[in-house]
């Protein structure tokens, strides 16, 4: 009885609210096209809710900061930039929907976004169909080069392979036995496939490689860690190459610390653990474990110092860390601005053609260049975890490493080449001389 009266009393009120909201929405959408004339819109497609919010929210913030700074300098082509932020909520199909909304409804000139490979794959058809530009800032498994996508994160040859090389060197401890530990999805599986082929080519035997996968968000690492301990007791120097992603890292490192597996015995080199991930962790037991990235917050460089200062001011929290994907957005954004200024237009076709060859400074003292395969040149650093949760760089590549879209160590991809300048193809087969993949 009570229930019905309540509902009846509420209905008219709800109706009024609805009408008001609809009116407001109408008003807004009517106002928008008028403003669109004097701004250039930049789409930001990062999850602000759901599981991936932990990583992607920061990237949204850094994009807002970069856009604000560019506007202070007078914008681009005499127009102000306007950020359009949408929330795909860590939901892969929603990424595609939101991308479509950004391109066809908001008419953005470019989109910066995605984190997981599956979200990138989900938006690919949309960017192809509507012919727009996506800057993808995260290290990924490679094996892809699309005309509409620019990959500013590391390809496997800019992260995984140099890290393994370091561990094999005398400085890294001359590692002879390998544990490839990863979360069970496309990035770790592909990366581990490449690494396995690479290690075997280097003469590592089958019995000296152990590959393990765990589900997303895995929390009970006791068995896995004791398995690693047992594997490491064969009398040869052992290392763990970790492609464990996201939340599962924290309990993994906690268990390593608790079981007393120290970096001097079995070092762990991680490809997905940065300053941000360590921020929620007591890092003292992790001293000396490694990470391979193209950027570390601790790197001393004037550009980096300015970037960190600006970031702290923008986010109004001096404790917030910076990380590798943030630098990737920094490079990508500056490259896009330069390309737009070069062709004096935001037309995607013109900008896509102008981008290869564009150079922009990175935050570690070098200048990165966009390559014809839509990947960029980057330096590779190996850092050891310090007690304060930052990294000490213990090794770096001599110069900048050009990103390779297709791995030469995989059967299906070693004949492929990506070149959007002369070949106009993302998967040109050097053997059959045809565009269109393997055989």
């Amino acid at each position, binding site marked *: 009885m009570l*229930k019905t009266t309540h509902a009846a009393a509420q209905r008219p009120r709800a109706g009024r609210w609805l009408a008001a909201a609809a009116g407001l929405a109408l008003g807004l959408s009517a106002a928008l096209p008028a403003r669109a004339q004097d701004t250039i819109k930049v789409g930001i497609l990062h999850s*602000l*809710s759901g*599981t991936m*919010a*932990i990583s992607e*929210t920061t990237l949204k913030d850094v994009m807002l900061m970069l856009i604000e700074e560019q506007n202070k300098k007078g914008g681009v082509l005499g127009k102000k930039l306007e950020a359009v932020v949408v929330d795909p909520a860590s939901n892969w199909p929603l990424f595609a929907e939101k991308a479509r909304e950004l391109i066809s409804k908001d008419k953005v000139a470019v989109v910066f976004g995605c984190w997981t490979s599956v979200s990138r794959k989900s938006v690919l058809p949309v960017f192809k169909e509507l012919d727009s530009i996506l800057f993808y800032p995260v290290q990924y498994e490679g094996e892809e080069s699309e005309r509409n996508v620019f990959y500013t994160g590391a390809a496997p040859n800019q992260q995984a392979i140099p890290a393994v090389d370091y561990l094999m060197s*005398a*400085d*890294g*401890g001359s590692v002879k036995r390998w544990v490839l530990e990863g979360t*069970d999805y496309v990035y770790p599986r592909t990366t581990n496939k490449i690494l396995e082929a690479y290690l075997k080519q280097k003469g590592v035997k089958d019995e000296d490689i152990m590959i*393990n*996968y*765990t*589900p997303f*968000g*895995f*929390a*009970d690492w*006791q*068995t*896995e860690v*004791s*398995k690693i*301990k*047992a594997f*490491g*007791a*064969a*009398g*040869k120097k052992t290392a763990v190459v970790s492609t464990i992603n996201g*939340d599962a890292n*924290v*309990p993994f490192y*906690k*268990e390593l610390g*608790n*079981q*007393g597996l120290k*970096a*001097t015995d079995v*070092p762990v080199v991680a490809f997905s653990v940065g300053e*941000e*991930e360590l*921020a*929620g*962790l*007591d890092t003292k037991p992790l001293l*000396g474990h*490694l990470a391979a990235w193209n950027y570390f917050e601790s790197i001393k460089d004037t550009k980096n110092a300015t970037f960190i200062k600006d970031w702290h001011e923008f986010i109004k929290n001096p404790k917030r860390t910076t990380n590798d994907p943030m630098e990737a957005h920094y490079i990508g954004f500056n490259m896009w601005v330069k390309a737009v200024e070069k062709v004096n237009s935001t037309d995607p076709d013109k900008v896509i053609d102008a981008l290869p060859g564009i150079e922009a400074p990175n935050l570690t003292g070098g200048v990165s260049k966009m390559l014809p395969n839509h990947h960029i040149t980057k330096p590779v650093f190996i850092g*050891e975890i*310090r*007690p304060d949760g930052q990294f*000490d760089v*213990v090794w770096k590549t001599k110069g900048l490493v050009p990103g390779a879209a297709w791995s030469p160590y995989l059967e299906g991809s070693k004949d492929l080449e990506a070149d959007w300048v002369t070949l106009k193809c993302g998967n040109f087969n050097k053997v059959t001389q045809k565009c269109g993949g393997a055989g």
Partner: protein
Amino acid sequence: MSARGDGAVPPPRIGAGNLAMRYSRACLVALLLAASFALGCTSAYAAGLDEALAHFTADDFSETSAGISAVAASGDPRAETIIRALQDGRLMYSAESKAVYIKDESGKLTNAASGEPIPGDAPADLDNVRINNRLRGAIEAALGGMTLLASDPARRFEAAQAVFKSRDASALPTLETALAKEQDPQVKQALAEARAAVILSDDKASDDDKIAAVDIVRQRGDQEALGLLSSLPANTSAPVAKAAAAAIGAIKNRLALWEAVQNAWYGISLGSVLLLAAIGLAITFGVMGVINMAHGEMVMLGAYVTFVVQDAIRTRNPGLFDYSLAIALPLSFLVAGCVGILIERFIIRFLYGRPLETLLATWGLSLILQQAVRTGFGPNNREVGNPSWMSGAFDAGGITITYNRLWIICFALAVFIALLALLRFTRFGLEMRAVTQNRPMAASMGIRTGRIDALTFGLGSGIAGMAGVALSQIDNVSPNLGQGYIIDSFMVVVFGGVGNLWGTFVGSFVLGIANKFLEPYAGAVLGKIAILVLIILFIQKRPRGMFALKGRAVEA
């Protein structure tokens, strides 16, 4: 004196370049000369030390490695202090003035070679000497060689372990001395094992000595012993190799046995986590029949209460940190319990008997709670520290038991027993059982069923909140914390038998142990799938779970 000098010859495996070797040999000769002529030892030390310290100003790992060997070889009384400072990142250098300093805990600088405070201001380009993993190993080996004769038995034990790992032949004379005068049986054992390890890697040792050494290592019987025996030098003679192979077989058998024990322990540990996560649900879902998808979020709220408590303690009264969990427990129960009561009063009570609507409403609620926490605390993980009594591990036989897991098992059992007692012996427990078994009859006896419903839901939620305190110790404190446990919790409750606390108890431990015995063979992903399939098959056979309720209560 000379014994110490001998003991500190640089370990050959560091391989920091011939230069260092030649240098340190020269240094050793100088030292012996100085000793034999009984000349001013201190001046010889100081000169050797200064040259050794110069290596640290190069900012190069190979140079630093040479520096460690040189400092160790110098035999200087300050060598240990310097190397410890290097290990802790307190050894500073100035590239410009080529000077090396030690920074103490309060940040004061002293001259590394003399130990005297420096006059005036610190040099502007002061930086700490960087080390990497290889150097950390070298440091441990050097310290091991130097502290074998330390007065503190714990440090002697540590030193013996370090030598066991480094197998540094030059430490042998010191080891013999230490072994001869050692009183502590545990340290003596460690020293004997270290000596065996050195002998096994030493080309000059006789076969008889080596076979005796194999026997000592075999008795140690752990993974490190296995690692040592399987990496004997290639030129090991046949009888020794045979003894080693036999020992490896024996150790492997022993380890296989312990592995089963370890799996059982891990299973109990996982079971206790499942029990904690599911026991609140056993009340809200099991006893009340509410499909509560927001159960995981109650766990998450409890974890966030722990974070808030620890944060307050950190800023106000760091001395209380070890008690933070004890303070967080009642608070998390109250917070999650109150949220639970609010949910029951404002949402769920309108939906009794409509499982589908309840499911959707509570699922929506879980999303709202997650996003509320995400907005309030930020999407990032929050750091919840382990109190000192929950950190680290100890060895029991051949298995490692971590303190945090041990305490969580105890806590889960305590919560379970307390809950059983509450239901069995208190008036509230009696009323709760009465209401869930026969609502109209209980109402006609004068029990206010609405109030009991709210309190029961609050109790289930409050227990979930307390589980959150425990889970914050082993998992991420993030808005997604609860999601990882909701499926497992339902699995346990359904498997154990809806409405039966003992079913939940047995169910969680059966699932935990089965999972951990499957995991080493099937892997974490397949193991979990296998468990799910087994449960589906089991439910086909026994739809009401392991401990099905019987009698009229079932129909009600």
